[in-house]
């Protein structure tokens, strides 16, 4: 485990920064919003993720990927956070790829992982059933039915739900265990309700009303499905934290740039000690978040059994710091920070939504306490 980026990672980060800055600057999100994009992301951008080799970041070379691991995925997400790039990368290339890697059968892997790597599919993972993230609260049922299953239940705010051609649904099997099921959202009995959120993404609610699934819809390749589910959550948290970190970093950079220019009483407002101390403190918080995110991601890659605590801690910290950075950013921008014209408000919105996904700081702090035994 190394905090310092190796050469491959450095190249990846540089190319992600250059490419996203060019192809998906904040104006791209504004355009998706203003044209009321039905999916909340650009299909073109998603194709180019494949061309850049990012879509298959967690896919083995056998299946057409580059197999660079979570640390690399986190670097892409961090840069996405910086430009607020909207893309099904987290849901498809991280969550779905992780689900297949951990729980897919050989056939499922051979079928789906290449499609993920090539960017020809968008997969959403349908997880939460309550308003606040709660991975133990799964009431969706997959009842055995001949060789297949019948799926019933509801899922809320499934990220990329509006644009997904395939879902992976977390449900309980007859023995009350967690199972992951592939569900085509166009199957009979699936109802989708799109949700336009404050950050201009389009997650969706799903109702599953006695949806008939074939036997091979079940991701049955794991010895311990519950462990696979927990690992999927860990990976999702660390990677979502990486995006939040990017949001925090750019919100901070924008703010420092703004206060360095804006004058009041004849001097730049960045010369006021009140703001300087808060900016310096914020930098400290950013450093902490940065370290935790990196630590969580590299631990997932190298010592996955040690990862859970680092992942929940990273998610908690990145959520808190990204919200703080953007909130302080608006305050330090003053009046213009409230206008849609400046980007800082968009960072504040994304910090909120990204923070919510897979548990906010309060939820994950509770997990830290639980895992630490107190």
């Amino acid at each position: 485990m190394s905090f310092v980026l190796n050469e491959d990672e450095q190249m990846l980060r540089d190319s992600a920064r250059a490419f996203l800055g060019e192809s998906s600057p904040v104006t791209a999100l504004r355009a998706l919003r203003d044209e009321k994009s039905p999916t909340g992301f650009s299909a073109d951008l998603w194709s180019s993720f494949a061309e850049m080799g990012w879509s298959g970041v967690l896919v083995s070379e056998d299946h057409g990927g580059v197999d660079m691991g979570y640390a690399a995925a986190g670097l892409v997400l961090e840069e996405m956070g910086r430009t607020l790039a909207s893309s099904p990368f987290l849901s498809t290339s991280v969550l779905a790829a992780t689900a297949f890697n951990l729980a897919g059968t050989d056939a499922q892997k051979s079928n789906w992982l290449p499609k993920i790597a090539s960017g020809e599919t968008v997969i959403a993972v349908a997880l939460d059933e309550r308003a606040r993230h709660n991975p133990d609260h799964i009431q969706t049922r997959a009842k055995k039915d001949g060789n297949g299953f019948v799926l019933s239940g509801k899922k809320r705010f499934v990220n990329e739900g509006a644009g997904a051609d395939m879902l992976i649904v977390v449900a309980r099997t007859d023995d009350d265990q967690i199972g992951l099921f592939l569900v085509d959202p166009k199957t009979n009995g699936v109802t989708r309700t799109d949700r336009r959120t404050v950050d201009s993404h389009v997650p969706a609610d799903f109702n599953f009303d006695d949806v008939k699934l074939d036997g091979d819809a079940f991701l049955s390749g794991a010895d311990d499905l519950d462990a696979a589910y927990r690992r999927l959550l860990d990976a999702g948290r660390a990677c979502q934290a990486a995006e939040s970190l990017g949001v925090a970093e750019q919100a901070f950079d924008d703010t420092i740039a703004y206060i360095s220019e804006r004058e009041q009483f004849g001097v730049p407002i960045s010369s006021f000690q009140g703001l300087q101390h808060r900016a310096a403190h914020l930098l400290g918080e950013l450093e902490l978040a940065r370290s935790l995110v990196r630590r969580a991601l590299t631990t997932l890659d190298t010592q996955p059994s040690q990862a859970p605590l680092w992942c929940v801690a990273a998610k908690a910290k990145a959520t808190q710091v990204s919200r703080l950075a953007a909130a302080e950013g608006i305050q330090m921008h003053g009046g213009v920070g409230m206008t849609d014209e400046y980007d800082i408000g968009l960072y504040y919105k994304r910090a909120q939504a990204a923070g919510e996904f897979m548990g906010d700081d309060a939820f994950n702090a509770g997990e830290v306490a639980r895992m630490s035994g107190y």
Partner: protein
Amino acid sequence: MMSLENFRKETKDWLQANCPESMRQPIRSEADICWGGRNWTFASEDQKLWLERMAERGWTVPTWPTEYGGGGLSKDEAFVLKEEMKAINARSPLDSFGIWMLGPALLKYGTHEQKLKFLPPIARGEIRWCQGYSEPGAGSDLVSLRTKGVLDGDHYTVNGQKVWTSYADQSDWIFALVRTEADAPKYNGISFLLIDMDQPGVTTKPIKLISGKSPFCETFFDDAKALVDNRVGNAGQGWEIAKYLLSHERAGIVSEAAFGGLNPVTAAHQSGEVEADGTMSDPILRGDVARLTIDGLAFEATMRRVKEEADHGEGVGARASLLKYMGTELNKRRNELNMSALGSDGLLWEGEKESDGDPARSWLRSRANSIEGGTSEINLNIVAKRVLNLPGA
């Protein structure tokens, strides 16, 4: 003079008889507020009736003198009226910057003629006012105002630009800070002018905010005319009047900020994030909310205390800055915790119902509380200097 008890009884009876049923519902959104003005369209017959009945008694502005359209009530009577209105959930019949801001300024600094001319239409909701203080590059730092008024016989010719003029696009008149004394230093060259917006030299342009639709505008003066008779106070006295009003504005923002709207416990019930016994499901969030409740109670008690002290003759003065700071920070915290308690439900921006997205909009709107009417930083500076008497840097 009637005893307070009698006054309470009569008031209760009158409200019971005269407040329409539909005006006894909580304000759910912007659209339920009555702002009045030349171009006002009432949301309902009841809204119109309620305004007329209250205005007739002068109770849209209960403490203003009756000759200027007010109710002539004492502070205690006005408090009773407020309590009795609250008891039946009666809506405010009229909200306006004329009532909150221009009124107090005119009552203190205006001539008798100005009062007679401008106050009654405010009280009756006939003329809607907006405020023109901030300019691009001059928010907290009003000293660098650049909008200029040149004396030209019986009027000033005004040129320049204001920002953050709330509802300027729907307002009839604007009270504005204008630099009229080109040679006077800093604060001393600013006058407080009343300007009719129904003239070709005044145009407005709405500002889009992060919370969506916005009451705020940019307002442009291009050889606009303002009669010298419509200058409040002396030439160059504008900054003094504005300071007086800012403390009124601060108090207004504070009481709105601290008490209105959703709270995290209700939010948790709405999103279903409570256990069967009503306990919030997330124990750590619950702790954060408990600390908010404590500060909310403390703030409520503080507002009450300051009011009582004011009634006993202790001026609020620069402490208004402290209250404004504490109240708005509290409101931001409340909105953040609302969002947390709502979970993903809080992220909704647009949906089938018009109210979908209200919590998020309120949350975003709350960020402005600590910027408008003097930023938190400015207020902390004022407290340090004028309450704690600490020296300048």
